[in-house]
């Protein structure tokens, strides 16, 4: 294009591209975020926020709690980006943080509930609330399931909800619950023993009953 075309470029800008077209990859955004690019963090948020918030809402029920843990999860993820060894796995990294925070909420809610500090209005009713539009019988089932879930151990509740509500594979339940696959299976099965008394729902085929 220019008369001096044969001269060497002053700044070599061409770098092999990992994602040849379209939007930057998650890994590229993570790297840019590590260098303080605020756009990259916003883009990471935009790509993951809806899924993260939806999971938080389904598991916690109360929108205020769900929004709190979503905010905390993103802040922690952005803060700990350096710890992310595989940048393309940002989504899983974020979900792991979110799940841990939800688990802590479950524990706190159970403790407060046992101590009588949790008002009725503050109790989570995640399933019933989200069943809007379903029939009365279904809503009744979901409401009863909420009640049962509040009474079981937080780790069992989390494992059951990840498996049965979110549809996570058992291996993912194990990873998110920081336990072995066998333990994850056992937790889901034990929680289901309690829940199936009120909820007409079978474990997926292949899951140990």
């Amino acid at each position, binding site marked *: *294009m*220019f*008369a*001096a075309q044969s*001269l060497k*470029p*002053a*700044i070599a*800008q*061409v*770098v092999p*591209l*990992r*994602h040849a*077209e379209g*939007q*930057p990859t998650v890994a*590229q955004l993570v790297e*840019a975020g590590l260098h*303080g*690019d*605020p*756009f990259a963090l916003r*883009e990471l*948020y*935009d790509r993951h*926020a*809806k899924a993260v*918030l*939806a999971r938080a*809402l*389904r598991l916690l029920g109360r929108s205020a709690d*769900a*929004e709190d843990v979503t*905010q905390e999860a*993103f*802040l922690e993820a*952005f*803060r700990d980006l350096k710890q992310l060894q595989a940048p393309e796995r940002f989504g899983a990294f974020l979900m792991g943080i979110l799940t841990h925070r939800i688990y802590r909420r479950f524990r*706190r809610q159970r403790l407060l509930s046992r101590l009588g500090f949790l008002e009725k209005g503050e109790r989570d009713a995640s*399933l019933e609330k*989200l*069943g*809007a*539009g*379903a*029939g009365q*019988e*279904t809503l*009744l*089932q979901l409401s009863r399931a909420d009640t049962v879930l509040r009474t079981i151990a937080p780790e069992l509740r989390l494992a059951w909800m990840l*498996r049965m*509500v*979110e*549809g996570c594979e058992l291996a993912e339940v194990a990873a998110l619950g920081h336990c072995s696959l066998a333990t994850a299976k056992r937790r889901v099965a034990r929680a289901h023993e309690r829940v199936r008394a009120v909820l*007409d*729902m*079978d*474990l*997926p085929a292949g899951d140990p009953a």
Partner: protein
Amino acid sequence: MKNAKRLAFPLNSQLVDPATDAAVRRVKLRVFSALGAAPTPTVWSWGRVGFAFSGALLVAALAVVGFQYFGVRSTSSTMLPGPLLTRSGSAFEALSTSPHSVAHTDFSDGSRIELAPAGKVSALSSTAQEFSVLLEQGELHVHVVPGGPRRWVVEAKLARIEVVGTDFSVQRSANSVRVSVGHGVVLVRSAWLEQGVQRLTAGQQLEVSPATSGAAESSPHGAKSPIRPIGHAAPKTIQPLEHAAAELPLVPRHRTSPPSVNELFAAVDRARLAGNRAEAEAALQQILSQFPNDARAPVARYTLGLVRLSAGGDRRRAVAEFELVLESGASSSLREDAFAKLVEVHAAAGEASEARSLLLRYQDEFPQGRHLARLRAKLRATRTKSP
């Protein structure tokens, strides 16, 4: 249980999607507000003493992120990193060449810029909607992939060149800017053009060159902005607007028909360049009263706000005009500008809560707004200065 419908696995397939766009935006505001400012105890209520240390670490980490985020912007106020990245995945900042070298940058969307020897180009803004650079000196060749989502803007002091998809060159020297179009269409905006804007198509070339100050004084007609096919020389002399403003009436003399909206806008430009606020205001009000449904009416209203805000103007009436811009069907770009002006005006008047409220509205509507960083910095500075 007997009559109840059996629920299928997984349950979320039968539940309503709980995450509304409003909730996602709300959390986004909270996340990025927390990143931009020290977190408050209400947000970070750890609840247990054992987490106090973790909390302190987090505050420190956020402060570092916040420093990187705002520190970089405050030291380089013209650079707003945006979604258009270079092919290497980094934000474009600047490109320069020595007298004996050329350089180029490829972008992730396939676009490319090439800088001729002794040139310098730097980023002004980069958003999902616009990529803007400043050609400080030299010749820049730009190849923008057609059909892209962004408007490309090359600022070159005397002229502003806008394109969506095309191939063109801009050459800036001390007293002129030359634009040559290879493919597609570009818009050149300049106060030195008779109508303020000139459309160039493939094969055309435009040189925007006002007279040098000495020459202009001795010869008010010395400036020229000829448009001609590349390779031809048929310059059309155009009067520089500073001198024209003093000589021309608000609308052309010897006419029987009312002035068109274009003529009124040209009159506004001339009056503003001549520093005649009253005439500019009159012409703008004429546009708003005679052409209320014209697509440029919101621009006229915004300009009226600017004129009223200028030295000795009426701040309250200016605010009213900017608010009317927000209520009108203004383009996104103009809405952003109106929000920015409102925040600035309120901040300058010490109305911090009003300014913050408007900033939140702006953030909510334009999460990646091009003025956000600057306005946040301004509000922080205002807060710091206030006792």
